[in-house]
């Protein structure tokens, strides 16, 4: 995976979220959330339902406009740019509930993402190499054999993997995965963990929203905990699991039993 222009020296965060606030009709979905993602890092965002995790992804990927705050990708401001512009700058995302192009084949779904970010329509300054990575990406998620099938024939779990493949086909430097494990069967989970590990080893920066901590905590280097729109913890998995506020937020809830 090639990244966007490396004008910044090593050590500068590839993604920086600075005091991002977002309200929905009086409800505060995000309140002055700040954190940084290092190049090549695997960061997991956790927090109970309604904590603002998906809203955070929407703001970062341009699908929602923040009321306050800034987002920078490789030192360049991307706050409130259009989603397609942000993708072409090298930040791709998946959706929690898969959103396939249902009238297209599996391969055409991925090809669409590749051509629109690397083809004639893309921004000339984008650093994407026009590599034909559709096959590589589809093999990675084990959907290559099914490339000619309509995407409407895939199972829910396969559609989640197609989401990942489509995001990867844009040749991103940073990928945001929104609950990639939700709705997967056991073998698909193993498959996804292998994919994530593979991508992590290749140097791709990954930001993952996930409830299933046990699957990912072994891989994560950095955990951010959101609770009612506020960041209540930020650090290594070990630090976060000892954090008093995190324990409090999870204590008594369904999550406490899940992660005990």
């Amino acid at each position, binding site marked *: 995976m090639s990244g966007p222009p490396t004008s910044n020296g090593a050590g500068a965060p590839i993604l920086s979220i600075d005091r991002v606030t977002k309200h929905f009709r009086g409800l505060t979905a995000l309140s002055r959330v700040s954190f940084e993602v290092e190049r090549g890092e695997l960061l997991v965002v956790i927090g109970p339902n309604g904590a603002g995790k998906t809203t955070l992804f929407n703001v970062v990927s341009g*699908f929602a406009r923040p009321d306050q705050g800034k987002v920078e990708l490789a030192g360049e401001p991307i706050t409130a740019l259009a989603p397609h512009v942000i993708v072409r700058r090298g930040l791709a995302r998946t959706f929690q509930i898969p959103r396939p192009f249902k009238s297209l084949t599996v391969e055409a779904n991925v090809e669409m993402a590749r051509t629109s970010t690397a083809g004639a329509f893309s921004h000339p300054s984008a650093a994407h190499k026009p590599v034909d990575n559709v096959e590589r990406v589809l093999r990675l998620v084990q959907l290559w054999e099914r490339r000619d099938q309509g995407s409407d024939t895939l199972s829910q779990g396969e559609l989640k993997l197609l989401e990942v493949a489509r995001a990867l086909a844009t040749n991103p430097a940073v990928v945001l995965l929104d609950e990639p494990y939700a709705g997967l069967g056991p073998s698909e989970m193993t498959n996804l963990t292998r994919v994530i590990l593979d991508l992590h080893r290749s140097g791709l920066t990954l930001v993952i929203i996930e409830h299933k901590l046990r699957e990912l905590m072994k891989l994560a280097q950095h955990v951010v905990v959101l609770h009612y729109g506020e960041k209540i913890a930020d650090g290594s998995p070990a630090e976060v699991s000892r954090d008093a506020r995190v324990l409090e937020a999870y204590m008594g809830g369904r999550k406490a039993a899940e992660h005990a």
Partner: protein
Amino acid sequence: MMHRLARVHIGLAVAFIGLVLLPLWISNPYVISVLTLAALYAIFASSWDILSGYIGQLNFGHAVFFGVGAYATGFLGPHLHPLFVLLAGGLTAVGFAFLVGVPCLKLRGPYLSLTTLVFPLILERLAFTFRDVTGGEYGITVSSPLSRIGLYYASLALLLATLTTLLAIAESRIGRTFRAIGDDDQAAMAAGINTTRFKLGAFVLGAAFAGLGGVLYAYHLRHVGPETFSLFTSFSIVIMGIVGGMGTIIGPAIGACFLTLLGESLREIETFRILIYSAVLILCVMLFPKGLWGLGNALRGFIRKPVASGGPQ
């Protein structure tokens, strides 16, 4: 996919050869006139389909585009060579597509469709208001540079050009992008597609062919008036598209021919015309949700299934 497209082209060729030779047997000017009207509506409906059927943004104001083409004919017809009038009609429609499209196409879903509803009403009002130029409710009389039969062939030629061009675009990577946006425009954005630009492109493309058709429409009616911008006109196009089969280009053209011929054949029983017409529409939508084109495909699959082993698709 190529096989399917090749079959469509063969079907088109056969149909057009038939229509070109038809006047050798049927010279009744009324029949030729009805067929010309059907061809013109087919141009409007198939050009409507590229935004509405592929991207799924129902345009309730397509009459704006052929209406301004028709008015351009009224204004410029007496002063310019017909070919320049044709060009002017297309360009006027394209201009309006940008004018309407740039502010509207950022809207999504029902908001865009509701906005498209408003523009023909504005133009209808304007036509009434500036009566010195537009002739108000009487409109403008247009003299046709072509004979009835000449106009029939001109309409057929434009219909063929419209269908082949739009089909070629619909089957290209651009058409596939239109479909992807129609499937899920948020996913399309996430895949790096500039959805607003593609929507504007589809809007302008459809407007161009509608504007060209609008010129022939004015020549055919020998008149252009504000009724072109009426809700009924715009809704007729939507209904033709739905009955024919959206997202197929050919389907809406078939729907337009079917409904134009149906409407004309019911002319003699004027009292029940609207009733029968409406009943046919409701039956079509209920029985063939994918339109006449979808019905045709289903029948083909049904006939083939017992013989060939493959089954449909």
